[in-house]
């Protein structure tokens, strides 16, 4: 009887470890901000409907965002952004698919701020490029929040327009904030 109890306990521990290992964090309300100001005029937008998931065990991560969901202060800028630069009817979404390379350094059961290295494929305007960047995973009560900041060269994504390099910066700064 004692042996059966020990075997059952070991099996149950295995199930608990397995379930823990499979945990996937997700949000549909993450935030992305970008700033493409090239001159005195502010060219910035925000999207509060970022869809993101990541696996605690593997570090596999995805961020996806719809281009038509970006909000500008100026409606005309928003229209030009969608029609002339991002061609959002043809390329409605942008996404990053990759890994948090140092996922093993993040302890999701201990609150704190952890440096995170992201590596993967970034697709914007129908063009995919390999990217790597650094960010931060903040754990509070077992729930992670990812913060990251990186730059994107518009020319690498075949985004063209007469104001790029003048009123619009050729290199756009992007900030990500996702609370899972």
């Amino acid at each position, binding site marked *: 009887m004692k042996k059966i109890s020990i075997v059952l306990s070991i099996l149950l521990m295995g199930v608990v470890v397995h379930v823990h290992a499979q945990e996937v964090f997700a949000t549909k*309300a993450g935030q992305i901000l970008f700033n493409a100001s090239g001159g005195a005029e502010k060219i910035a937008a925000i999207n*509060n*409907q970022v*869809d993101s998931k990541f696996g605690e065990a593997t570090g596999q991560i995805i961020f996806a965002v719809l281009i038509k*969901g970006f909000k500008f202060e*100026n*409606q*005309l800028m928003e229209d030009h952004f969608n029609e002339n630069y991002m061609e959002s009817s043809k390329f*409605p979404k942008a996404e990053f698919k990759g890994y948090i390379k140092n996922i093993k350094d993040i302890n999701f059961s201990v609150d704190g701020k952890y440096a995170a290295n992201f590596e993967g494929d970034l697709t914007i305007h129908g063009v995919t490029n390999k990217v790597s960047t650094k960010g931060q995973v903040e754990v509070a009560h077992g729930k992670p929040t990812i913060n990251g900041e990186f730059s994107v060269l518009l020319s690498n994504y075949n985004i063209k327009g007469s104001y790029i390099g003048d009123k619009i910066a050729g290199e756009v700064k992007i900030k990500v*904030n996702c609370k899972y």
Partner: protein
Amino acid sequence: MKRIIYTVLLIILLGAVTTYYYVFVYSKNHHRDVQQETAISVSADSLVAAYEASDSIANAKYLNKALEIKGPIAAKDTNAVGQVTLLLGDSDPFKKRVSITLNTKTPISQKTGDTIKVKGKCTGNLSDVVITDGVIK
């Protein structure tokens, strides 16, 4: 001759003032208001089914359009800036649903399971069909 020059200068000046006003004043203060637009009425389940069948066909019909979506509240929450967010459709979290961000930070009285109508703009399809600028009708 002078009259022609003054007229041309006046036209150029008027053009410059109008352009400046339209680009920097009017466009900053006048945003698209989907609540004033005629909406396509659709159930949450039909909208999801359309996107599950074909992204491109559904986008041609719904992308960037004003929609009035009817369906049961599967979940409600708030986003990073405090706006109310809703999921309309199936209560099964593994199924595609309609993800809506409302134009309000005030908590809503409707409960999970209640069937509601929301008018907003369709921005496309991710793991859920996404609606922004939503207002409960």
